[in-house]
């Protein structure tokens, strides 16, 4: 038993020695002292700045939400339909993790106007007011984490093996029987410990900033934990790739060259090429095409449904038959509102078809980008980070579909009240709706889906990231086994 333990203990002890030696070497080298604090400071500054922005925007959103609700509830005497057209605004609350990764928030719009007859797009995106600086990258903590931190890894690890080879120490290690696998495992562990040392204070700052938001519940902490784990895996991929390249090339210059090239490809080139490919392979309608087609289908009807006028005549006939009267004006219920309900039900159908098609196109574009993630772990990490922060497309879609359900319900309830409160045809200028009616509509409330939703929607991204991890570690292991001085 003890004899069999000995090689393992010796291996562990050797590993420990290697890790300590690597850490000492990193500390003696100026790079960690120079770059580590710089990255740490930048990350902490970005986290604090982002947290302040998040809290300010959260307060502003709540305040504007309350004001627009008051505007709705106190609009006074109006025709109910005109009151409904005044509409309400749905504001999407940001999850606390959005302060780490604002993701698509600047591009998705901040509010949706909910009004009868039509489904609107989310509007007032911050990107519309952005300066050209945003084209080079949004300065958010996540940008530093997924784009810049890998450069720190590259700069710490590019000569991890080549330098040993250039100085002749690799041959010495080889001669004393240090296996390549142990050497690489030690270097990898030391690299991750050094990185952990740099990131740990920022993790504490980030945790404090998150806790300060007052929004942290079990779900939010689960998201934060998963994000930390995902980034740890991502950095392991980069560290493994850096060591792998350092093994495979002969000189430090070549290693640095290759690694910077890979970083450029992963962070700058592949995401943009993926976006370009998605853009060209799955086209989106133009704004005017999209709305014109909705209008056309509403006016002309889907195949077999007849046009708007024919549908209206058929509905009128049905109403007359149902209530046993000869003229619309003799109906015991509000015909104007009932007609509107009928028309809106059709408009909802038309909108649903076109919006579903639009979201399918977005989804296909997203899939193309996910496939491009096979060429860049950064793309998969970025997508995962946005999903965990609730700032991705699927969270936006969930919010918009909730807002749409609320819009239909609001419009239907106003029209049902209208038809019950009137008889026959009513002028659009008659004011018989009042504050009691507006206040009877409960405010829009939205809660983002839980972490289970993220796990389901992020399966592909997680699989791609794990694939990168397995391949990077596998290749590193194979190369380490064959490591020659």
């Amino acid at each position, binding site marked *: 038993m003890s004899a069999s333990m000995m090689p393992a203990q010796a291996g562990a002890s050797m590993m420990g020695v290697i890790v300590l030696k690597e850490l000492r070497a990193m500390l003696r080298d100026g790079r960690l002292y120079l770059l580590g604090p710089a990255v740490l400071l930048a990350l902490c500054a970005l986290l604090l700045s982002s947290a302040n922005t998040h809290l300010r925007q959260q307060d*502003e*959103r709540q305040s*504007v939400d309350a*004001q*627009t609700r008051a*505007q709705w509830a106190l*609009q006074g005497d109006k025709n109910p339909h005109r009151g409904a057209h*005044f509409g309400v*605004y749905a*504001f999407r609350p940001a999850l606390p993790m959005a302060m780490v990764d604002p*993701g698509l928030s600047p*591009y*998705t719009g*901040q*509010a949706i*106007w909910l009004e009868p007859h039509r489904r*609107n*797009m989310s*509007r*007032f*995106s*911050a990107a*519309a*007011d*952005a*300066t*050209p*600086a945003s*084209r*080079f*990258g949004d*300065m958010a903590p996540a940008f530093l984490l997924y784009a810049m931190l890998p450069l720190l890894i590259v*700069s710490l690890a*590019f000569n991890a093996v080549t330098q040993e080879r250039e100085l002749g120490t690799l041959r010495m290690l080889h001669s004393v029987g240090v296996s390549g696998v142990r050497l690489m495992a030690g270097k990898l562990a030391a690299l991750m410990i050094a990185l952990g040392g740099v990131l740990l204070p920022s993790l504490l700052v980030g945790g404090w900033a998150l806790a300060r938001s007052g929004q942290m519940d079990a779900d939010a902490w689960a998201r934060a934990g998963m994000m930390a784990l995902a980034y740890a895996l991502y950095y392991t991929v980069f560290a493994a790739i850096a060591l792998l390249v350092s093994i495979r090339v002969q000189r430090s*210059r*070549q290693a*640095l*060259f290759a690694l*910077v*090239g890979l970083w450029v490809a992963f962070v700058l080139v592949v*995401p*943009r*090429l*993926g*976006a*370009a490919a*998605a*853009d*060209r392979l799955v086209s989106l309608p*133009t*704004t*005017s095409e*999209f709305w014109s087609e909705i*209008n056309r289908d509403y006016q002309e009807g889907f195949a077999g449904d007849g046009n708007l006028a024919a549908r209206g005549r058929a509905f009128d006939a049905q109403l007359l038959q149902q209530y046993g009267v000869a003229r619309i004006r003799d109906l015991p219920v509000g015909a104007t509102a009932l007609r509107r309900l009928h028309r809106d039900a059709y408009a909802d159908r038309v909108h649903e078809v076109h919006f579903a098609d639009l979201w399918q196109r*977005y989804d296909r*574009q997203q899939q193309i*980008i996910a496939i491009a993630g096979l060429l860049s772990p950064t793309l998969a990490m970025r997508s995962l980070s*946005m999903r965990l922060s609730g700032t991705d497309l699927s969270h*936006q879609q969930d919010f918009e579909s909730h807002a749409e359900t609320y819009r239909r319900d609001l419009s239907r309830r106003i029209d049902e009240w209208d038809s019950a409160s009137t008889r026959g045809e009513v002028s*659009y200028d008659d004011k018989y709706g009042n504050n009691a009616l507006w206040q009877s509509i409960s405010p829009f409330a939205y809660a983002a889906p839980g972490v289970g939703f993220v796990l389901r929607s992020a399966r592909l991204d997680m699989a791609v990231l794990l694939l990168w991890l397995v391949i990077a570690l596998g290749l590193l292991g194979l190369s380490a086994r064959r490591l020659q001085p």
Partner: protein
Amino acid sequence: MNLMMQLLRVEGLRFARNRVNLYVLAAFGLLLVVSAVWAGLAARDYRAQVQTQAQHWGQVTDAARDAAAAAANAPPDGAKNALAAFTLGRSDHAIARLPASGGLVLSARQFERLSPELRVSVESRHADARKNDVLANPLLDGLGVPDFATVLALLLPLALIGLCYGLVQEDREQGIWRLVCTQCASLGSLLGAALLIRAGAVVGVAVLASALAFLIDPGATLASFAAWVACLLVYTLVWTAIAGLCALPAWSSGAAAIGMLGIWLAVSFVTPAALAWVANTKDPMPSRLDAIVAMRVAQQDAEVATDDLVLAWYRDHPQDRNPAYTSHTWPVTFVPRFLAQDQVVRPLMRSFDDVRARQLETMERASFLSPGLALAMGADRLAGIDASRYLRYVDAVNRHEDAWRAFLVPRIMGYRGLSADDIVRLPRFDPASIPAQSPLSALWRLTGLGLVLLGIVVACRGRLRRP
């Protein structure tokens, strides 16, 4: 001169025989060609789309003219005439378009993202997302579609860094530099020749890729291309000077590479963000959410005052009152309401473009601190999407919308509708008042920076003497 030619020849040979240099150039060229083709196609698609929309508007006015001609022969129906004029007056096809300039290919997607087509209307175009907003997948916007100018601004310095790093330091590490010092009388000229060859190679690839992009775009102009080449030369000058500066200290080649990368990161990512922060501090962007509240106040006030606004309109325009109509309904009752609402909403919305223009003015003044940003802003000017031109465009659209309403509203409110002749005489948007600006005037600071850096390299060339 003879010595310089000899050095150029020798450095040229040294450059060409290093396979890594050729790989760097090939990768740089390949990426630029992909981006150029994508950008060229995007620009071409955009121009084709403009043509299609112009045809749609032609079809809409043709149909309206035919309907007006038919209505002229039918018994007069004022309500129907007013509705027809109102419908045309708020048509989704009444587009006032910002004309793209000859350099559209440089920032094609950015151009499309910034709402270059605003729909004028007798309603308020600001309340309706369908009038102004652009349909786009936020995911692609977030990833950053590869607009040619941005890709070039990011990759050109990296290509230069790849070709130039360790230029002197590596020779030093290998002991070759000591030999060079003993054999070459003018080390400065030697470094100059090496930098010139590398800068020439990089700028050559960039110009060729740009030419490809401009050739694909049917609306590209030679003047824009020439201005763009000038921008590229200045940009390359600055980065070549930076590469020259990094060749001077007695660092290791690895340290030189990390130093150059650090400079690239700082001026490409950190400086633009810092400049944006400064610009936003100086001219804070108003809140879009607060604007929603203000817009709804204007909507509600106009709604409450609908009847008074109608009366006031007829009081101010007695010549347009139709005595046959004493009580009014939609759309007539709504038009004065929209006009009143827009008096509040329009300046509110313009303030965003105004602040944006002021912010970009601030950034442009300091953009020489980030050469990539300066290049991207120059490209925006060549594409015709710079913020000051956009603001002038918004003003021109507002003037056009005023003319549009001045023409249509009396015909709606007076129940006259539009005759076939009226439709021919509908106000047309004249984009001549918004010419594109040359980027060269904004590049002089960057040129100055490049020359200063080059001057420092020349002044410090004595440091090369260290073996």
